């Protein structure tokens, strides 16, 4: 099982922390993930196999034409809806640089 201390170290690097219960949940989830990784590792001769990112090629995949669609633009109120502290229509947070 993945060490809780190791998860804490990783969380620190990503600049967040969790409570003990959450770490335990994560440990259990990682347990499944790592077991699956082990199973994959048992498949022989994978060295020259290119990782398959997409299951099939989208022959019709296209780029988007460069047009503004006003209806996708959120109102300032909606932009800030998930934030508890707002000042001058901006999200307020503790200072992030010294």
């Amino acid at each position: 099982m993945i060490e809780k201390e190791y998860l804490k170290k990783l969380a620190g690097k990503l600049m967040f922390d969790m409570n003990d219960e959450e770490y335990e949940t994560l440990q259990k989830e990682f347990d499944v993930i790592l077991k699956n990784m082990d199973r994959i590792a048992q498949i022989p001769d994978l060295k020259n196999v290119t990782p398959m990112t997409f299951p099939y090629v989208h022959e019709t995949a296209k780029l988007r034409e460069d047009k503004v669609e006003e209806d996708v633009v959120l109102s300032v109120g909606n932009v800030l809806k998930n934030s508890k502290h707002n000042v001058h229509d901006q999200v307020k947070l503790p200072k992030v640089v010294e």
Partner: protein
Amino acid sequence: MRKVVIGLEVHCEVMTHSKNFSASPNEYTMTPNIHVSPVDLGLPGILPVANKEAVRKALKTAMALHCENPDEVIFDRKNYFYPDLPKGYQITQVTKPCGVRGYLDFYVEDKVKRVEIHQLHLEEDTASLEHYNNFSLIDYNRSGIPLMEIVTEPCIESSDEAVAFLETLRSVFLYLEVSEAASDKGQMRCDVNISLKEEGETKLGTKVEMKNINSFSNVHDAIEYEIKRQNEVLDHGEKVVQETRRFDDTTGKTFSMREKVDAIDYKYFVEPNIPPVKITKEFLEEIRQEIPPLAFSRMNKYMEEYGLSRYDATILVKEKKISDYFEEVIKNGASYKSASSWVISLVLASLNKLEISLEEFFLTPKMLADVINLVDNNKLSMDHGKKIIYQAIKEKRNPIEIIEENHLEKIEDQNVILNYAQEAIEENPEQVRQYVEEGKDYIANFFVGKVMQKSRRQADPKIALEMIKQELEKRKNR
């Protein structure tokens, strides 16, 4: 003497109507949070779709930098946590960037320097943060604006080379019209990697990274400060620490931000929400056709073919519109040297004085060429030519119209000029005496002045001098 090794990472916002992965506007504004869509905020359920114009402009810039282009567009996720990145990852390119292995040639003083380009990739900008005494504010307008990053090989050897490279790169952006590249709007920013190595040493020294420097003069000062600092560290027998430093433009010093041991692992992986899109040869060819001759090649042409000085050529290629204007003046029949001197001394000076751009400038290249041609063919004095140009600009009128209306064409008819000369001589007997009896030859110029006055500056001064001397000499021999 240690050698300086510099590599640059340049970020430049791409000029498009909409953002890189959403249809919200890519438009500079001071009003916060008005150009934001759910995709830009990374809300659950979003589906980013790549902007064709942003891809086209990134490929175009890569081509202009002589890079190899990929056969398909693929984006990757760069994962890190910071308040300016609401999704928790930035969509960028690692697997197949828009360009790899290119180069850019430019002048440093009178020498040509080549900087190798490692890669050019397309990504998205972050939100902007404003820092106050004890809090920070986030404005998401900038989130998702298309951003090109150009990474050089570590082959730049001084602050002057770095600045010359950045200036040339900026001119590439402007010539290609892919970006406004205005550093005061944060549209062009630069990270500098710098290390020192002993002369003859093949291995690179420990590098220090300086992030987000927003002006060319700050890049220059940051490099100079770092060279001095690293030299002092090495002189004391100490080791340079591998770290990220921040340049503070108020003190002109760099400060440590974080050491390499704390470096973030970005856990790159292919962006699963954007399927790969094939880039056809036709698409690439279409883009290639749109690339105009750039400043460096124009400059070489002006110096080698047109015989202009490096100084003048540099001024003329600084802006594509000016260079285009200059070339139009030539197409309308003006000689290279005259076109160059009139554009620099009159057009650029007028633009500066009037504080307007070339688009707002009344005088067309054809109008300027017409006046230059009259002056060069001795049909109009230089003096009149300049005055007419200024008048034309001021009154927004065709200079030829002003010339015709005021009968300002140069008088070359010897009989007409002779009449003026004789009149002047008759009216000024004392000066004639000085010339004839005292041998004061320079008095001839006094009469040229009189002829010019009488002819409203239309007489050809060379012919006038000839006529005056001829008349005065006659009196000597009487």
